[in-house]
């Protein structure tokens, strides 16, 4: 169970989140929507305790993570994995080494087993051919696929976090990434792996999520399902999801 309780965060004097509260289960499929700079990425970083809130509590399975040290956070972070907007691949390592990274660090598997697993994961995300390329040789879509494979190799996350997974990709590639995200969170609750995607791409969010939260001026102004989102009477939000209507 994930709980944000009155979380407030400001960078210098710029208040990004203002008493944000919500709860979610690990098997939920959430989407945070909002314009640029509304604090979507910040929500994911808070959830992983990569930044700490100024006030409020963030509870993961009943434990307040805002006061834990880096080493205490290790088991908490293991419940998640994140795919950052640009992939955040280690740029001095090849795709193979990137995906193998965590398995090597954990040191539990032999080199052959690691290689086998790397190939499996790359096949799963559909870029087996790129195994020996360096990150800078990959297209944006391939980088994100490689990053997803690397995250899957880190262990058995209970929830996947995606930061703008489709931004900057052509519609077809975006759709493919969306399918991949759905596939990784397939199944029935509570047995499936949940996902949180933060994006301003409403179409992509609608494809992979069931619950939608809209961030505006540091607050959650909408929290509901797709029909609710489409029939909202909030003028701001209406404008924001116009793109979705246009596509239909």
């Amino acid at each position, binding site marked *: 169970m994930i709980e944000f309780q009155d979380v407030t965060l400001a960078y210098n004097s710029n208040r990004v989140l203002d008493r944000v509260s919500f709860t979610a289960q690990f098997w939920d499929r959430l989407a945070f929507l909002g314009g640029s700079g509304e604090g979507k990425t910040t929500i994911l*970083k808070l959830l*992983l305790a*990569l930044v700490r809130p100024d006030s409020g509590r963030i509870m993961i399975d009943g434990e307040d993570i805002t006061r834990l040290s*880096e*080493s205490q956070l*290790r088991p908490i*972070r*293991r419940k*998640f*994995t*994140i795919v*950052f*907007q*640009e992939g*955040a*691949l*280690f*740029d001095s390592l090849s795709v193979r080494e990137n995906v193998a*990274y*965590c398995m090597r*660090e954990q040191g539990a598997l032999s080199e052959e087993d690691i290689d086998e697993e790397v190939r499996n994961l790359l096949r799963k995300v559909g870029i087996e051919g790129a195994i020996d390329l360096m990150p800078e040789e990959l297209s944006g879509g391939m980088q994100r696929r490689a990053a997803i494979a690397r995250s899957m190799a*880190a262990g058995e996350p209970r929830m996947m976090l995606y930061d703008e997974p489709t931004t900057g990709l052509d519609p077809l590639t975006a759709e493919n990434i969306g399918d991949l995200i759905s596939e990784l969170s397939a199944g029935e609750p509570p047995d499936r792996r949940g996902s949180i995607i933060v994006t301003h791409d409403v179409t992509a969010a609608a494809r992979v999520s069931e619950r939608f939260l809209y961030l505006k001026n540091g607050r959650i102004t909408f929290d509901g399902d797709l029909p609710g989102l489409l029939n909202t009477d909030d003028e701001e939000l209406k404008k924001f999801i116009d793109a979705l209507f246009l596509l239909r």
Partner: protein
Amino acid sequence: MNLRTLLAQAQDFYALSARSLLGIFHRPFRVRETVEQMDYAGSGSVLIVILVSLFIGMALSLQISTELAALGLKMYTGKIVGIAIIREIGPVAIALTFAGRVGSGMASELGSMVLGHQVDMLRVFGMDVVKKLVTPRVLSATLMLPVLTVIGDGAALFGGYYIAAFVSHQSGSFYWGQIAEIMNFNNIVSGLAKPFLFGFLIATISCYMGLAARGGARGLRQATTTAVVLSIIMIIVTDFLLTQILFLLLGMQA
């Protein structure tokens, strides 16, 4: 920037420096990363250090032998050039070169890893970022700068010899004889204590600045510039303080 954030940053910096040292004593030892960094900081800097030192030695020798010749004392060129290089100019000039090449590299590499979320990714994967990224760099700089200083001192002395023997027409063997004479405990300790501290300072400052980088390309520029400028200032100031401390410890007098 107000005093409070400045103090908070100083505190973060000391914490980082201390933790980077502690990382040496705890498993897992990052041997591969450390060797890689030593190669980058050490082997990678040898040529530029030799080049810079050679010319400094030549210029110094030219200046000093000309002055001494006017006094009829040019046979002492070796002694003065040697002391100046071993105790003072060598360690400082080579540390400045090192700050420009290696310090800037560390700050910009770590900075771009921060901005590209690679550092966040390491934390999500449960790595100790200080141990993984900072300790190998601090260790390699602290160990390699003294080695580079010995090499650079050698090159500078050779540059001094070249000018003394072939431009100022002095006896080459007399020059080296004087150099041998000044190679005593006090001079060697004075010259070699400094680069250990300089290397440590350059690496900790540069890693700190790199990890503190925020805000895109502009932030990266700022981080790199600050790392090099702060390193340079710290080298010069510490050099003066350290010289005084060494004078005290070695019982020398001005």
